[in-house]
C-alpha cells in the first residue's frame, strides 16, 4: 500500500509550551489509524496542523506526495482532507441537510446535485428524520454525527475524525464503527482518528499511534500497542505490575 500521509518531525510550541515535539508517522492509503494519548498530549494540535488551521513551527507534511505545509484550510480540503472538530461547530441556524449541502458543494457543480448527495449521507448517518431541523436543535451525539456527515460530503480521500465517539452510548458507537468500516472498505476513505474510546479503537484501527506530552511514544497494531511498556506507564502509572 502506498503512503497517503507522511508527517516528518512535526513540532509546535505555544508560548514556550511544547505541544507537539518532533512527531513523525505515516498513514497508508486505505488504512484506519488511531491517534491516542492522554488529554493534552497534542493530538488535536497535530490535527490542526494537518488541516491547515495551525502553522507548524517545524517539520513537513506530505499528502499524496505533495507538501501541504502552509496551505489554508480550504486549500487542504480541496486536496482531499476532510476534518471534524472536537468541539463541534455546526452551522447552527441552518437545517441539518443544509449543513451537509455546504460540504457537498465542494464536489458538486450544481446545488440540486449537492442536495441529493447530501441527503444520502444524512440518511446513512441516521439523521434522516431530522434533516429539516435546525442544527441548533440537535443533541450533542447528533451534532457529532453531523460533523462526520459534513466532512464526508466533501468526499475526502483522508478523513480526520476528532473524538467523534465522545458522548455516544455503546449502541451508537457500534453503529458508527460499522459505518466507518463501511466507508473505509467500500469507498476507500482513509481515516486518521483521535479517540478515547478504546473499545472502538481496538475494533477498528489497523494501526495505533500513541502520543504523550507531545511526543510519539509508540506505534503499531492495536494488540501490540496495549502491551507496550511506555504506553502502560503513561496511561496506568509506572509501578504497574502485569
Amino acid at each position, binding site marked *: 500500500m502506498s503512503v497517503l500521509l507522511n508527517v516528518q518531525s512535526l513540532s509546535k510550541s505555544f508560548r514556550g509550551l511544547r505541544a507537539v515535539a518532533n512527531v513523525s508517522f505515516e498513514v497508508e492509503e486505505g488504512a484506519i489509524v488511531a491517534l491516542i494519548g492522554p488529554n493534552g498530549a497534542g493530538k488535536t494540535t497535530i490535527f490542526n496542523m494537518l488541516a491547515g488551521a495551525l502553522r507548524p513551527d517545524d517539520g513537513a507534511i506530505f499528502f499524496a506526495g505533495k507538501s501541504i505545509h502552509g496551505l*489554508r484550510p*480550504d486549500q487542504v*480540503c480541496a486536496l482531499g482532507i476532510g476534518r471534524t472538530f472536537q468541539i463541534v461547530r*455546526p*452551522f447552527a441556524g441552518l437545517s441539518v441537510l443544509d449543513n451537509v449541502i455546504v460540504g457537498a458543494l465542494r464536489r458538486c457543480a450544481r446545488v440540486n446535485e449537492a442536495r441529493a448527495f447530501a441527503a444520502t449521507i444524512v440518511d446513512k448517518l441516521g439523521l434522516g428524520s431530522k434533516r429539516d431541523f435546525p442544527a441548533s436543535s440537535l443533541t450533542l451525539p447528533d451534532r457529532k454525527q453531523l460533523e462526520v456527515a459534513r466532512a464526508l460530503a466533501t468526499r475526502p480521500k483522508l478523513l480526520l475524525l476528532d473524538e467523534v465517539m465522545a458522548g455516544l452510548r455503546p449502541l451508537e458507537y457500534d453503529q458508527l464503527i460499522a459505518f466507518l468500516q463501511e466507508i473505509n472498505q467500500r469507498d476507500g476513505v482513509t481515516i486518521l482518528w483521535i479517540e478515547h474510546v478504546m473499545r472502538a479503537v481496538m475494533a477498528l484501527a489497523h494501526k495505533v499511534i500513541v502520543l504523550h506530552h507531545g511526543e510519539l511514544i509508540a506505534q503499531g497494531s492495536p494488540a501490540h500497542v496495549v502491551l507496550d511498556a511506555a504506553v502502560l506507564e503513561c496511561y496506568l502509572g509506572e509501578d504497574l505490575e502485569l
Partner: protein
Amino acid sequence: MTLFLFFAYAGQAWNIMMGFAGQLSLGHSLYLGVGAYAAAALYFHFGIGPWAGLWLAIALCALLGAAIGALAFRYGVAGVYFTLLTIAFAEFARIGLDHFAWLGGSGGMFLKVAERDRVELLNLRGTPAMFYYVILALSAAALALSAWLLHSRAGYYWQAIRENEDAAQALGINTFRWKMLAVVISAAMTALAGVFSAFYYSSLFPEQLFSINRSVEIILGPIIGGVGTIFGPIVGAALLTVLAEGTNEIVVAFGWEVPGIKQLIYGIVLFAVIVFLPHGIWSALAGKLKVRE
C-alpha cells in the same frame, strides 16, 4: 410609497452583506453617498445622464467595497472592529466632501430641476410617478437577485461563513473570496440607491448622505423585518413607513403639540417589535404561515 420602496431596496442591499454573509456594516451611507455624488457630478459638470453615470457609481462603490473588504478580511479585522471600520470610511467621506468645493462642499450640490410635469426618463427628470416606477423596478430586481443568490452556491457559502467561519473554511470555502463578493455586490446595489436619491431629491449634502443616521435608517428595515430573510427587508420597510406616517396622523388628529412625541411613539413601537419578535416580523410570520423561503 417611493420612500418605502427606497428603503426596501437599500435594506435588501445591506441584507446581502449582513443577513446572508454575516458582515455587519454601519457605514452603508458611504456607498449611498458615493453613488449619488458620482452620478450627480457627471450630470452637473459634464451633462452626462444618470443611465451612463450609474455605471461610474457602481464601479466606484464596488471598488470602495473591495478596498474596505480587502483591508478588513486580509488583516483579520472582524466583528465589531469591522463595523467600526465601515463607520470610519463613511465618516472620512463625509468630512472629505464637506471640503470638496468641486462637488459643492458642505453647502451642497443642486441639480437643475426641470419642469416636473414632463417625464424625461433618459435624464431621470420627471414626475413623482416616474420615480415611483423606477424604484419599484429596482426593488423587484433586488428581490429576485436576493432570492436567487440565497439559493445558489453563494448563498450556502455565505450562510456557512455567517454561522461559523472556521467550519466553513474547513469545508473548502475560500472565506476571503466569498466575503469580498458579498461586500462588492452589496456596495454596488447601494450605489444605485444613491443614484436614485440624487436625482429624486436633486440636492446633495454630505451631512445628509453620508451621516450615520442614514446608515441606521437603511438597516432598520431588515432588522425589523428579519435579517437574512428574502422578504424581511421589504416587510420591515413597509412597517416603518406605515409607522412613521401613522404617528404623524395620530399626532395631527389629537392635536398634540409636544415636541418629540412622534419620535417617542416611533421608538416605543420599534422597541416592542425588537423585544417581542427578535428574529423580525417576517420570520415570525413565515413560521406561522409555514412558508419556506
